[in-house]
Protein backbone atom coordinates (compact mmCIF):
# COMPACT_ATOMS: atom_id res chain seq x y z
CA UNK A 1 0.00 0.00 0.00
CA UNK A 2 1.22 3.46 -0.94
CA UNK A 3 -0.40 6.70 0.13
CA UNK A 4 0.81 9.95 -1.41
CA UNK A 5 -0.18 13.51 -0.55
CA UNK A 6 2.54 15.97 -1.47
CA UNK A 7 3.11 19.57 -2.40
CA UNK A 8 6.21 20.98 -4.01
CA UNK A 9 6.97 24.32 -5.58
CA UNK A 10 9.40 24.24 -8.53
CA UNK A 11 9.82 27.75 -9.88
CA UNK A 12 6.42 28.73 -11.20
CA UNK A 13 5.28 25.10 -11.25
CA UNK A 14 3.21 23.88 -8.34
CA UNK A 15 3.02 20.15 -7.72
CA UNK A 16 0.07 19.10 -5.58
CA UNK A 17 -0.91 15.47 -5.98
CA UNK A 18 -2.84 12.93 -3.94
CA UNK A 19 -3.37 9.28 -4.73
CA UNK A 20 -2.96 5.83 -3.24
CA UNK A 21 -2.28 2.34 -4.51
CA UNK A 22 -3.18 -0.94 -2.88
CA UNK A 23 -2.04 -4.23 -4.42
CA UNK A 24 -2.91 -2.91 -7.85
CA UNK A 25 -1.50 -0.90 -10.70
CA UNK A 26 -2.12 2.81 -10.55
CA UNK A 27 -1.24 4.76 -13.68
CA UNK A 28 -0.34 8.43 -13.49
CA UNK A 29 -1.51 9.61 -16.87
CA UNK A 30 -0.76 13.02 -18.34
CA UNK A 31 1.26 14.90 -20.87
CA UNK A 32 4.99 15.51 -20.45
CA UNK A 33 5.69 18.22 -17.92
CA UNK A 34 2.46 17.55 -16.02
CA UNK A 35 4.31 16.46 -12.88
CA UNK A 36 3.90 12.69 -13.11
CA UNK A 37 7.60 11.85 -13.09
CA UNK A 38 8.28 14.32 -10.31
CA UNK A 39 5.67 12.56 -8.21
CA UNK A 40 7.64 9.33 -8.64
CA UNK A 41 10.87 11.14 -7.74
CA UNK A 42 9.20 12.32 -4.53
CA UNK A 43 8.01 8.83 -3.61
CA UNK A 44 11.47 7.40 -4.27
CA UNK A 45 13.14 10.01 -2.08
CA UNK A 46 15.19 11.58 -4.86
CA UNK A 47 13.12 14.78 -4.58
CA UNK A 48 12.05 16.25 -1.27
CA UNK A 49 8.52 17.70 -1.25
CA UNK A 50 7.86 21.00 0.55
CA UNK A 51 5.01 19.49 2.50
CA UNK A 52 2.81 16.45 2.74
CA UNK A 53 3.09 12.81 3.66
CA UNK A 54 4.13 9.59 1.91
CA UNK A 55 3.43 6.18 3.40
CA UNK A 56 4.84 3.02 1.85
CA UNK A 57 3.82 -0.40 3.14
CA UNK A 58 2.67 1.04 6.45
CA UNK A 59 5.89 2.98 7.05
CA UNK A 60 5.94 6.77 6.90
CA UNK A 61 8.85 7.57 4.57
CA UNK A 62 8.11 11.28 4.39
CA UNK A 63 6.10 13.54 6.65
CA UNK A 64 6.72 17.27 6.69
CA UNK A 65 4.92 17.82 10.02
CA UNK A 66 6.99 15.28 11.97
CA UNK A 67 10.14 15.91 9.91
CA UNK A 68 10.48 12.36 8.63
CA UNK A 69 12.39 12.06 5.34
CA UNK A 70 13.99 8.68 4.67
CA UNK A 71 16.80 8.63 2.09
CA UNK A 72 16.11 6.65 -1.12
CA UNK A 73 18.27 3.80 0.19
CA UNK A 74 15.88 3.09 3.07
CA UNK A 75 12.60 3.20 1.17
CA UNK A 76 12.83 -0.32 -0.35
CA UNK A 77 11.25 0.62 -3.65
CA UNK A 78 11.87 -0.77 -7.12
CA UNK A 79 12.28 2.21 -9.43
CA UNK A 80 12.52 1.78 -13.19
CA UNK A 81 13.85 4.95 -14.81
CA UNK A 82 12.82 6.31 -18.15
CA UNK A 83 16.50 6.39 -19.17
CA UNK A 84 16.83 2.71 -18.15
CA UNK A 85 20.14 3.54 -16.45
CA UNK A 86 22.03 0.24 -16.65
CA UNK A 87 25.60 0.77 -15.48
CA UNK A 88 27.62 0.71 -18.72
CA UNK A 89 30.76 -0.64 -17.05
CA UNK A 90 29.04 -3.72 -15.63
CA UNK A 91 27.77 -6.91 -17.25
CA UNK A 92 24.14 -7.99 -16.95
CA UNK A 93 25.00 -10.28 -14.03
CA UNK A 94 26.90 -7.49 -12.29
CA UNK A 95 24.08 -5.03 -12.88
CA UNK A 96 21.43 -7.35 -11.45
CA UNK A 97 23.64 -8.37 -8.54
CA UNK A 98 24.63 -4.78 -7.81
CA UNK A 99 21.93 -4.09 -5.17
CA UNK A 100 22.83 -7.37 -3.41
CA UNK A 101 26.22 -6.15 -2.18
CA UNK A 102 25.72 -7.45 1.36
CA UNK A 103 24.56 -10.91 0.29
CA UNK A 104 26.61 -14.03 0.63
CA UNK A 105 28.10 -15.01 -2.74
CA UNK A 106 26.16 -18.19 -3.53
CA UNK A 107 22.84 -16.66 -2.43
CA UNK A 108 23.58 -13.70 -4.64
CA UNK A 109 24.37 -15.84 -7.67
CA UNK A 110 21.21 -17.87 -7.14
CA UNK A 111 19.10 -14.71 -6.83
CA UNK A 112 20.59 -13.30 -10.05
CA UNK A 113 19.87 -16.58 -11.87
CA UNK A 114 16.28 -16.61 -10.58
CA UNK A 115 15.67 -13.06 -11.76
CA UNK A 116 17.13 -13.77 -15.18
CA UNK A 117 14.78 -16.73 -15.42
CA UNK A 118 11.81 -14.64 -14.35
CA UNK A 119 12.51 -12.07 -17.06
CA UNK A 120 13.67 -14.60 -19.65
CA UNK A 121 17.16 -13.18 -20.10
CA UNK A 122 19.14 -16.28 -19.05
CA UNK A 123 21.55 -16.05 -21.99
CA UNK A 124 22.53 -12.43 -21.49
CA UNK A 125 24.52 -12.69 -18.24
CA UNK A 126 27.91 -11.80 -19.70
CA UNK A 127 26.72 -9.02 -22.00
CA UNK A 128 27.39 -5.34 -21.45
CA UNK A 129 24.47 -2.91 -21.81
CA UNK A 130 25.71 -1.56 -25.15
CA UNK A 131 25.58 -5.09 -26.54
CA UNK A 132 21.83 -5.45 -26.04
CA UNK A 133 18.63 -4.14 -27.58
CA UNK A 134 16.50 -1.58 -25.76
CA UNK A 135 13.97 -4.23 -24.80
CA UNK A 136 16.64 -6.48 -23.34
CA UNK A 137 18.11 -3.55 -21.45
CA UNK A 138 14.73 -2.74 -19.96
CA UNK A 139 14.27 -6.36 -18.86
CA UNK A 140 17.66 -6.28 -17.13
CA UNK A 141 16.78 -2.98 -15.46
CA UNK A 142 13.53 -4.49 -14.22
CA UNK A 143 15.36 -7.55 -12.88
CA UNK A 144 17.80 -5.24 -11.09
CA UNK A 145 14.99 -3.15 -9.61
CA UNK A 146 13.35 -6.31 -8.26
CA UNK A 147 16.54 -7.91 -6.92
CA UNK A 148 15.96 -6.82 -3.34
CA UNK A 149 12.57 -7.32 -1.69
CA UNK A 150 10.61 -4.21 -2.62
CA UNK A 151 7.46 -2.75 -1.07
CA UNK A 152 6.31 -1.13 -4.31
CA UNK A 153 7.36 -0.79 -7.92
CA UNK A 154 7.66 2.62 -9.58
CA UNK A 155 7.76 2.70 -13.39
CA UNK A 156 8.62 5.96 -15.14
CA UNK A 157 7.57 5.75 -18.81
CA UNK A 158 9.03 2.24 -18.83
CA UNK A 159 8.41 1.57 -22.51
CA UNK A 160 8.95 4.97 -24.07
CA UNK A 161 12.47 4.19 -25.29
CA UNK A 162 11.28 1.08 -27.16
CA UNK A 163 9.79 0.60 -30.58
CA UNK A 164 6.20 -0.57 -30.94
CA UNK A 165 6.88 -4.32 -31.22
CA UNK A 166 9.15 -4.41 -28.16
CA UNK A 167 6.73 -2.26 -26.26
CA UNK A 168 3.87 -4.69 -26.78
CA UNK A 169 6.17 -7.54 -25.75
CA UNK A 170 7.27 -5.86 -22.55
CA UNK A 171 3.79 -4.73 -21.59
CA UNK A 172 2.66 -8.33 -21.79
CA UNK A 173 5.64 -9.25 -19.62
CA UNK A 174 4.69 -6.69 -17.02
CA UNK A 175 1.10 -7.89 -16.92
CA UNK A 176 2.40 -11.45 -16.44
CA UNK A 177 4.73 -10.37 -13.60
CA UNK A 178 2.14 -8.25 -11.86
CA UNK A 179 0.39 -11.20 -10.30
CA UNK A 180 3.61 -12.68 -8.89
CA UNK A 181 4.92 -9.43 -7.46
CA UNK A 182 1.94 -8.72 -5.25
CA UNK A 183 3.04 -5.14 -4.51
CA UNK A 184 1.55 -1.81 -5.55
CA UNK A 185 2.76 -0.64 -8.93
CA UNK A 186 2.76 3.05 -9.81
CA UNK A 187 3.33 3.60 -13.51
CA UNK A 188 3.80 6.91 -15.28
CA UNK A 189 2.80 7.21 -18.92
CA UNK A 190 1.56 9.69 -21.50
CA UNK A 191 0.29 6.88 -23.73
CA UNK A 192 -3.50 6.54 -23.51
CA UNK A 193 -3.72 2.93 -24.65
CA UNK A 194 -0.89 1.93 -22.36
CA UNK A 195 -2.62 3.61 -19.44
CA UNK A 196 -5.81 1.67 -20.06
CA UNK A 197 -3.97 -1.59 -20.66
CA UNK A 198 -1.95 -1.53 -17.45
CA UNK A 199 -4.11 0.35 -14.98
CA UNK A 200 -6.54 -0.81 -12.36
CA UNK A 201 -6.98 2.83 -11.46
CA UNK A 202 -5.88 5.95 -13.32
CA UNK A 203 -4.89 9.33 -11.94
CA UNK A 204 -5.18 11.96 -14.67
CA UNK A 205 -2.51 14.57 -13.96
CA UNK A 206 -2.26 18.02 -15.46
CA UNK A 207 -0.24 21.05 -14.38
CA UNK A 208 0.79 19.34 -11.18
CA UNK A 209 -2.72 18.38 -10.08
CA UNK A 210 -4.80 15.22 -10.15
CA UNK A 211 -7.90 16.01 -12.22
CA UNK A 212 -9.51 12.62 -11.63
CA UNK A 213 -8.49 9.48 -9.78
CA UNK A 214 -10.76 6.54 -10.45
CA UNK A 215 -10.99 2.99 -11.86
CA UNK A 216 -9.89 2.97 -15.48
CA UNK A 217 -13.36 2.40 -16.98
CA UNK A 218 -14.70 5.36 -15.01
CA UNK A 219 -11.91 7.62 -16.24
CA UNK A 220 -12.48 6.50 -19.81
CA UNK A 221 -16.26 6.46 -19.83
CA UNK A 222 -17.19 8.80 -17.00
CA UNK A 223 -14.62 11.62 -17.13
CA UNK A 224 -14.98 14.07 -14.27
CA UNK A 225 -14.57 17.14 -16.42
CA UNK A 226 -14.34 18.37 -19.97
CA UNK A 227 -10.54 18.55 -19.60
CA UNK A 228 -10.29 14.90 -18.53
CA UNK A 229 -12.52 13.95 -21.46
CA UNK A 230 -10.18 15.80 -23.82
CA UNK A 231 -7.06 14.23 -22.33
CA UNK A 232 -8.50 10.72 -22.48
CA UNK A 233 -9.51 11.14 -26.11
CA UNK A 234 -13.25 10.78 -25.64
CA UNK A 235 -13.94 11.93 -29.20
CA UNK A 236 -17.33 13.58 -28.69
CA UNK A 237 -17.97 16.38 -26.23
CA UNK A 238 -21.26 18.21 -26.69
CA UNK A 239 -22.72 21.30 -25.13
CA UNK A 240 -26.11 20.37 -23.71
CA UNK A 241 -29.03 22.01 -21.90
CA UNK A 242 -31.01 20.24 -19.19
CA UNK A 243 -34.63 19.48 -19.92
CA UNK A 244 -35.44 18.07 -16.48
CA UNK A 245 -34.98 14.49 -15.35
CA UNK A 246 -32.36 12.66 -17.37
CA UNK A 247 -33.28 14.44 -20.58
CA UNK A 248 -31.04 17.00 -22.26
CA UNK A 249 -31.09 18.84 -25.54
CA UNK A 250 -28.12 18.57 -27.93
CA UNK A 251 -28.22 20.38 -31.25
CA UNK A 252 -32.01 20.72 -31.10
CA UNK A 253 -32.54 17.02 -30.40
CA UNK A 254 -33.44 15.54 -27.03
CA UNK A 255 -31.40 12.69 -25.55
CA UNK A 256 -31.55 10.64 -22.41
CA UNK A 257 -28.26 10.81 -20.45
CA UNK A 258 -26.68 8.91 -17.53
CA UNK A 259 -27.60 11.43 -14.80
CA UNK A 260 -30.36 13.91 -14.04
CA UNK A 261 -29.78 17.52 -15.08
CA UNK A 262 -31.83 20.48 -13.80
CA UNK A 263 -33.94 22.07 -16.51
CA UNK A 264 -32.18 24.96 -18.23
CA UNK A 265 -28.72 24.11 -16.79
CA UNK A 266 -25.83 24.12 -19.30
CA UNK A 267 -23.63 21.03 -19.04
CA UNK A 268 -21.07 19.11 -21.14
CA UNK A 269 -21.95 15.63 -22.34
CA UNK A 270 -19.29 13.16 -23.46
CA UNK A 271 -19.47 9.93 -25.38
CA UNK A 272 -16.48 7.92 -26.60
CA UNK A 273 -16.30 7.54 -30.39
CA UNK A 274 -16.31 3.74 -30.11
CA UNK A 275 -19.49 3.76 -27.99
CA UNK A 276 -21.70 5.38 -30.63
CA UNK A 277 -23.81 2.98 -32.72
CA UNK A 278 -24.99 2.84 -36.32
CA UNK A 279 -28.40 1.22 -36.57
CA UNK A 280 -30.11 -0.58 -39.44
CA UNK A 281 -33.31 1.40 -39.19
CA UNK A 282 -35.24 2.88 -42.05
CA UNK A 283 -34.25 6.57 -42.05
CA UNK A 284 -37.72 7.42 -43.29
CA UNK A 285 -39.48 5.94 -40.22
CA UNK A 286 -39.70 7.79 -36.90
CA UNK A 287 -36.32 7.21 -35.13
CA UNK A 288 -36.27 5.41 -31.74
CA UNK A 289 -35.18 7.22 -28.55
CA UNK A 290 -31.60 8.67 -28.54
CA UNK A 291 -31.40 8.13 -32.32
CA UNK A 292 -31.10 10.63 -35.14
CA UNK A 293 -30.53 10.54 -38.89
CA UNK A 294 -27.11 11.64 -40.08
CA UNK A 295 -24.91 11.42 -43.13
CA UNK A 296 -21.19 10.73 -43.44
CA UNK A 297 -19.14 13.89 -44.10
CA UNK A 298 -15.62 12.54 -43.48
CA UNK A 299 -13.81 9.24 -43.15
CA UNK A 300 -10.40 8.64 -41.53
CA UNK A 301 -8.66 5.28 -41.91
CA UNK A 302 -6.32 4.41 -38.98
CA UNK A 303 -5.46 0.91 -40.14
CA UNK A 304 -6.99 -1.08 -37.31
CA UNK A 305 -10.05 1.16 -37.15
CA UNK A 306 -11.99 3.80 -39.05
CA UNK A 307 -13.35 7.02 -37.68
CA UNK A 308 -16.28 8.51 -39.57
CA UNK A 309 -17.78 11.92 -38.95
CA UNK A 310 -21.52 12.20 -39.30
CA UNK A 311 -23.61 15.35 -39.51
CA UNK A 312 -27.25 15.20 -38.42
CA UNK A 313 -29.50 15.86 -41.41
CA UNK A 314 -32.25 17.19 -39.13
CA UNK A 315 -31.91 18.11 -35.43
CA UNK A 316 -28.91 16.49 -33.77
CA UNK A 317 -25.15 16.96 -33.32
CA UNK A 318 -22.00 16.39 -35.38
CA UNK A 319 -20.58 13.09 -34.13
CA UNK A 320 -17.39 11.02 -34.58
CA UNK A 321 -17.83 7.26 -34.58
CA UNK A 322 -15.01 4.73 -34.40
CA UNK A 323 -15.53 1.28 -35.93
CA UNK A 324 -13.06 -1.60 -36.13
CA UNK A 325 -11.74 -2.08 -39.67
CA UNK A 326 -13.10 -5.56 -40.32
CA UNK A 327 -16.82 -4.97 -39.64
CA UNK A 328 -16.50 -1.55 -41.24
CA UNK A 329 -15.29 -3.08 -44.50
CA UNK A 330 -17.54 -6.19 -44.41
CA UNK A 331 -20.66 -4.13 -43.77
CA UNK A 332 -19.63 -1.56 -46.35
CA UNK A 333 -20.44 1.28 -43.99
CA UNK A 334 -19.03 3.90 -46.34
CA UNK A 335 -21.17 2.75 -49.27
CA UNK A 336 -24.29 3.99 -47.52
CA UNK A 337 -24.36 7.72 -46.97
CA UNK A 338 -27.27 8.05 -44.56
CA UNK A 339 -27.39 6.26 -41.25
CA UNK A 340 -29.42 6.24 -38.09
CA UNK A 341 -27.02 7.03 -35.23
CA UNK A 342 -27.74 5.92 -31.69
CA UNK A 343 -26.05 7.52 -28.68
CA UNK A 344 -26.92 5.02 -25.89
CA UNK A 345 -28.16 6.73 -22.74
CA UNK A 346 -25.80 4.76 -20.47
CA UNK A 347 -22.76 6.05 -22.45
CA UNK A 348 -23.87 9.67 -22.71
CA UNK A 349 -22.02 11.01 -19.71
CA UNK A 350 -22.94 14.30 -18.06
CA UNK A 351 -20.11 16.53 -16.83
CA UNK A 352 -21.02 19.56 -14.74
CA UNK A 353 -19.14 22.72 -15.52
CA UNK A 354 -16.93 24.35 -12.92
CA UNK A 355 -18.53 27.47 -11.46
Amino acid at each position, binding site marked *: MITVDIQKRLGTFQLDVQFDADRETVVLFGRSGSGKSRSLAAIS*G*LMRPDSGRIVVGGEVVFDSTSGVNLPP*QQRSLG*YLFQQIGLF*PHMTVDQNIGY*PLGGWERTARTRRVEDLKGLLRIEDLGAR*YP*DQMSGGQQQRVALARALARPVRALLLDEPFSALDEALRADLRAELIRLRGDLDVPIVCVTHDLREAHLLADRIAVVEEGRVLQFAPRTDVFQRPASRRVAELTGVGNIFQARGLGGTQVEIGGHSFEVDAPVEAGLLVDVAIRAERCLLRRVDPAAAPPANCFVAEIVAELAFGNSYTIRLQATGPGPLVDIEIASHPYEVLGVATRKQWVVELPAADLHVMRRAE
Partner: protein
Amino acid sequence: MADRVAAPRAGRRAWSLEALFLSPTLLFAAFILVPLVALAVRGWQDGEVAERLASPFVLHALRLSIVTSTLSLALALIFGVPAAYLLARSRFPGHRLLTILVELPMVLPPTVAGVALLVAFGRRGAIGSTLSSMGLELSFTTAAVVLAQLFVSAPFLVRSLQAGFEAIDPTYEDVSRTLGVSDWRTFWRVTLPLAWPSLLSGAVLCWTRALSELGATLIFAGNFEGRTQTMPLAIITAFESRAGLSGAIALSLVLLAVAFLLLVLARVSRGRSRGDVS
Protein backbone atom coordinates in the same frame (compact mmCIF):
# COMPACT_ATOMS: atom_id res chain seq x y z
CA MET B 1 32.38 9.05 -46.09
CA ALA B 2 28.64 8.57 -46.37
CA ASP B 3 28.19 12.32 -46.30
CA ARG B 4 30.54 12.66 -49.19
CA VAL B 5 28.44 10.29 -51.27
CA ALA B 6 25.21 11.95 -50.31
CA ALA B 7 26.47 15.48 -50.87
CA PRO B 8 29.33 15.51 -53.36
CA ARG B 9 29.50 19.27 -53.46
CA ALA B 10 29.94 19.72 -49.73
CA GLY B 11 32.28 16.74 -49.82
CA ARG B 12 34.59 18.34 -52.37
CA ARG B 13 34.73 21.49 -50.36
CA ALA B 14 35.62 19.58 -47.20
CA TRP B 15 38.31 17.72 -49.10
CA SER B 16 39.98 20.87 -50.38
CA LEU B 17 39.89 22.24 -46.85
CA GLU B 18 41.66 19.09 -45.72
CA ALA B 19 44.30 19.63 -48.39
CA LEU B 20 44.75 23.20 -47.26
CA PHE B 21 45.16 22.18 -43.63
CA LEU B 22 47.50 19.30 -44.41
CA SER B 23 50.72 21.30 -44.84
CA PRO B 24 50.50 23.27 -41.56
CA THR B 25 49.69 20.03 -39.77
CA LEU B 26 52.67 18.24 -41.28
CA LEU B 27 54.98 21.18 -40.50
CA PHE B 28 53.72 21.18 -36.92
CA ALA B 29 54.33 17.46 -36.56
CA ALA B 30 57.82 17.87 -38.01
CA PHE B 31 58.52 20.72 -35.62
CA ILE B 32 57.84 18.40 -32.70
CA LEU B 33 59.47 15.33 -34.20
CA VAL B 34 62.73 16.84 -35.50
CA PRO B 35 64.19 17.95 -32.12
CA LEU B 36 63.23 14.64 -30.54
CA VAL B 37 64.88 12.65 -33.32
CA ALA B 38 67.90 14.94 -33.18
CA LEU B 39 68.14 14.25 -29.48
CA ALA B 40 68.06 10.50 -30.04
CA VAL B 41 70.58 10.63 -32.91
CA ARG B 42 72.98 12.82 -31.00
CA GLY B 43 72.76 10.54 -27.98
CA TRP B 44 73.60 7.60 -30.27
CA GLN B 45 76.58 9.43 -31.82
CA ASP B 46 77.98 10.49 -28.46
CA GLY B 47 77.90 6.90 -27.31
CA GLU B 48 78.55 6.01 -23.71
CA VAL B 49 74.94 6.81 -22.94
CA ALA B 50 74.66 3.77 -20.72
CA GLU B 51 77.88 4.64 -18.88
CA ARG B 52 76.74 8.19 -18.30
CA LEU B 53 73.38 7.04 -17.05
CA ALA B 54 74.98 4.56 -14.67
CA SER B 55 76.75 7.32 -12.77
CA PRO B 56 75.55 7.93 -9.18
CA PHE B 57 74.71 11.51 -10.14
CA VAL B 58 72.14 10.32 -12.67
CA LEU B 59 70.83 7.41 -10.63
CA HIS B 60 70.19 9.65 -7.65
CA ALA B 61 68.31 12.15 -9.80
CA LEU B 62 66.28 9.43 -11.50
CA ARG B 63 65.34 7.75 -8.26
CA LEU B 64 64.44 11.07 -6.64
CA SER B 65 62.35 12.08 -9.64
CA ILE B 66 60.35 8.86 -9.65
CA VAL B 67 59.82 8.86 -5.88
CA THR B 68 58.80 12.51 -5.65
CA SER B 69 56.56 12.59 -8.72
CA THR B 70 54.79 9.41 -7.58
CA LEU B 71 54.32 10.91 -4.13
CA SER B 72 52.89 14.12 -5.56
CA LEU B 73 50.54 12.10 -7.76
CA ALA B 74 49.37 10.17 -4.69
CA LEU B 75 48.78 13.40 -2.79
CA ALA B 76 47.06 14.94 -5.81
CA LEU B 77 44.69 11.96 -5.91
CA ILE B 78 43.93 12.11 -2.18
CA PHE B 79 43.05 15.80 -2.31
CA GLY B 80 42.12 16.18 -5.96
CA VAL B 81 39.50 13.45 -6.33
CA PRO B 82 37.21 14.85 -3.59
CA ALA B 83 37.79 18.40 -4.86
CA ALA B 84 36.96 17.44 -8.46
CA TYR B 85 33.80 15.63 -7.34
CA LEU B 86 32.58 18.55 -5.24
CA LEU B 87 33.30 21.05 -8.00
CA ALA B 88 31.46 18.88 -10.51
CA ARG B 89 28.45 17.83 -8.44
CA SER B 90 27.59 20.53 -5.92
CA ARG B 91 26.96 24.22 -6.08
CA PHE B 92 28.05 26.11 -3.00
CA PRO B 93 29.08 29.67 -2.16
CA GLY B 94 32.60 30.21 -3.46
CA HIS B 95 32.27 27.52 -6.11
CA ARG B 96 33.42 29.83 -8.86
CA LEU B 97 36.27 31.19 -6.77
CA LEU B 98 37.45 27.69 -5.96
CA THR B 99 37.35 26.73 -9.64
CA ILE B 100 39.57 29.68 -10.53
CA LEU B 101 41.86 28.96 -7.58
CA VAL B 102 42.34 25.37 -8.67
CA GLU B 103 43.19 26.45 -12.21
CA LEU B 104 45.53 29.26 -11.19
CA PRO B 105 48.71 27.17 -10.82
CA MET B 106 48.26 26.00 -14.41
CA VAL B 107 48.73 29.49 -15.78
CA LEU B 108 51.15 30.71 -13.12
CA PRO B 109 54.87 30.66 -14.08
CA PRO B 110 56.41 27.89 -11.94
CA THR B 111 59.11 30.26 -10.68
CA VAL B 112 56.36 32.43 -9.20
CA ALA B 113 54.94 29.33 -7.56
CA GLY B 114 58.39 28.61 -6.14
CA VAL B 115 58.77 32.08 -4.69
CA ALA B 116 55.26 31.93 -3.22
CA LEU B 117 55.92 28.55 -1.65
CA LEU B 118 59.18 29.82 -0.20
CA VAL B 119 57.50 32.87 1.28
CA ALA B 120 54.83 30.71 2.87
CA PHE B 121 56.71 27.58 3.90
CA GLY B 122 60.30 28.80 3.95
CA ARG B 123 62.30 29.03 7.21
CA ARG B 124 61.16 32.60 7.78
CA GLY B 125 57.87 32.20 5.94
CA ALA B 126 54.39 32.75 7.27
CA ILE B 127 53.79 29.10 8.13
CA GLY B 128 57.36 27.95 7.74
CA SER B 129 58.57 29.91 10.79
CA THR B 130 55.98 28.18 12.99
CA LEU B 131 56.94 24.81 11.57
CA SER B 132 60.59 25.72 12.03
CA SER B 133 60.08 26.46 15.72
CA MET B 134 58.55 22.99 15.99
CA GLY B 135 61.71 21.57 14.46
CA LEU B 136 60.17 20.96 11.06
CA GLU B 137 62.13 22.26 8.10
CA LEU B 138 60.44 22.17 4.73
CA SER B 139 62.45 24.35 2.37
CA PHE B 140 65.43 22.71 0.64
CA THR B 141 64.27 19.20 1.60
CA THR B 142 62.80 16.34 -0.45
CA ALA B 143 59.40 17.22 1.05
CA ALA B 144 59.76 20.66 -0.56
CA VAL B 145 60.30 18.98 -3.93
CA VAL B 146 57.03 17.08 -3.49
CA LEU B 147 55.16 20.22 -2.42
CA ALA B 148 56.47 22.18 -5.39
CA GLN B 149 55.44 19.41 -7.78
CA LEU B 150 52.05 19.03 -6.13
CA PHE B 151 51.39 22.76 -6.40
CA VAL B 152 51.97 22.94 -10.15
CA SER B 153 50.72 19.48 -11.20
CA ALA B 154 47.60 18.73 -9.10
CA PRO B 155 45.40 21.19 -11.05
CA PHE B 156 45.82 19.06 -14.17
CA LEU B 157 44.29 16.10 -12.35
CA VAL B 158 41.47 18.12 -10.81
CA ARG B 159 40.57 19.81 -14.09
CA SER B 160 40.45 16.59 -16.09
CA LEU B 161 38.57 14.65 -13.43
CA GLN B 162 36.06 17.45 -12.82
CA ALA B 163 35.18 17.42 -16.52
CA GLY B 164 34.91 13.62 -16.30
CA PHE B 165 32.52 13.74 -13.35
CA GLU B 166 30.44 16.44 -15.04
CA ALA B 167 30.03 14.24 -18.11
CA ILE B 168 28.44 11.42 -16.08
CA ASP B 169 24.65 11.39 -16.18
CA PRO B 170 23.55 11.85 -12.54
CA THR B 171 20.79 9.32 -13.26
CA TYR B 172 23.34 6.54 -12.68
CA GLU B 173 23.91 7.79 -9.15
CA ASP B 174 20.16 8.18 -8.59
CA VAL B 175 19.59 4.62 -9.80
CA SER B 176 22.22 3.34 -7.41
CA ARG B 177 20.66 5.15 -4.45
CA THR B 178 17.18 3.80 -5.19
CA LEU B 179 18.76 0.33 -5.29
CA GLY B 180 19.64 0.75 -1.62
CA VAL B 181 23.35 1.37 -2.15
CA SER B 182 24.96 4.02 0.07
CA ASP B 183 26.32 7.25 -1.40
CA TRP B 184 29.85 6.23 -0.41
CA ARG B 185 29.60 2.86 -2.18
CA THR B 186 27.86 4.47 -5.13
CA PHE B 187 30.87 6.74 -5.54
CA TRP B 188 33.34 3.83 -5.59
CA ARG B 189 31.26 1.40 -7.63
CA VAL B 190 29.57 3.72 -10.14
CA THR B 191 30.82 7.30 -10.26
CA LEU B 192 34.55 6.73 -10.11
CA PRO B 193 34.62 3.77 -12.54
CA LEU B 194 32.59 5.80 -15.04
CA ALA B 195 35.10 8.66 -14.68
CA TRP B 196 38.00 6.24 -15.15
CA PRO B 197 39.20 7.58 -18.54
CA SER B 198 39.32 11.13 -17.17
CA LEU B 199 41.00 9.95 -13.99
CA LEU B 200 43.62 8.15 -16.03
CA SER B 201 44.41 10.98 -18.42
CA GLY B 202 44.37 13.44 -15.53
CA ALA B 203 46.76 11.27 -13.55
CA VAL B 204 49.13 10.95 -16.52
CA LEU B 205 49.11 14.69 -17.10
CA CYS B 206 49.64 15.30 -13.39
CA TRP B 207 52.47 12.81 -13.13
CA THR B 208 54.35 13.99 -16.23
CA ARG B 209 53.96 17.60 -15.13
CA ALA B 210 55.42 16.68 -11.75
CA LEU B 211 58.20 14.79 -13.46
CA SER B 212 59.17 17.81 -15.55
CA GLU B 213 58.86 20.35 -12.73
CA LEU B 214 61.87 22.67 -12.60
CA GLY B 215 61.23 26.32 -11.70
CA ALA B 216 59.30 25.96 -8.47
CA THR B 217 61.55 23.15 -7.28
CA LEU B 218 64.73 25.12 -7.94
CA ILE B 219 63.54 28.11 -5.89
CA PHE B 220 61.70 26.33 -3.08
CA ALA B 221 63.78 23.16 -2.74
CA GLY B 222 67.12 24.10 -4.24
CA ASN B 223 69.48 21.87 -6.22
CA PHE B 224 71.11 19.33 -3.87
CA GLU B 225 72.18 16.02 -5.32
CA GLY B 226 70.35 13.08 -3.77
CA ARG B 227 68.00 15.34 -1.81
CA THR B 228 66.30 17.82 -4.13
CA GLN B 229 68.06 17.33 -7.46
CA THR B 230 65.42 15.76 -9.70
CA MET B 231 65.99 14.85 -13.37
CA PRO B 232 65.21 18.30 -14.83
CA LEU B 233 67.55 19.91 -12.30
CA ALA B 234 70.19 17.32 -13.09
CA ILE B 235 69.89 18.18 -16.76
CA ILE B 236 70.52 21.86 -16.01
CA THR B 237 73.42 20.95 -13.74
CA ALA B 238 74.93 18.63 -16.34
CA PHE B 239 74.50 21.25 -19.03
CA GLU B 240 76.42 23.81 -16.97
CA SER B 241 79.13 21.34 -15.91
CA ARG B 242 82.19 19.91 -17.62
CA ALA B 243 80.13 17.21 -19.30
CA GLY B 244 78.10 19.95 -21.00
CA LEU B 245 75.57 19.07 -23.63
CA SER B 246 76.44 15.38 -23.77
CA GLY B 247 75.42 14.86 -20.15
CA ALA B 248 72.22 16.78 -20.66
CA ILE B 249 71.38 14.72 -23.73
CA ALA B 250 71.73 11.40 -21.96
CA LEU B 251 69.46 12.55 -19.14
CA SER B 252 66.96 14.07 -21.54
CA LEU B 253 66.65 10.77 -23.39
CA VAL B 254 65.64 9.06 -20.18
CA LEU B 255 62.93 11.62 -19.44
CA LEU B 256 61.70 11.49 -23.03
CA ALA B 257 61.41 7.72 -22.88
CA VAL B 258 59.52 7.82 -19.58
CA ALA B 259 57.09 10.49 -20.82
CA PHE B 260 56.47 8.66 -24.08
CA LEU B 261 55.89 5.37 -22.29
CA LEU B 262 53.38 6.96 -19.90
CA LEU B 263 51.42 8.51 -22.72
CA VAL B 264 51.23 5.26 -24.67
CA LEU B 265 50.22 3.32 -21.56
CA ALA B 266 47.44 5.80 -20.85
CA ARG B 267 46.16 5.59 -24.42
CA VAL B 268 46.12 1.82 -24.41
CA SER B 269 44.33 1.38 -21.09
CA ARG B 270 41.93 4.17 -21.98
CA GLY B 271 40.98 2.38 -25.18
CA ARG B 272 40.23 -0.74 -23.17
CA SER B 273 38.07 0.81 -20.48
CA ARG B 274 34.31 1.02 -20.90
CA GLY B 275 33.70 4.56 -19.97
CA ASP B 276 31.01 5.18 -22.54
CA VAL B 277 28.29 7.27 -20.98
CA SER B 278 25.12 7.04 -22.99
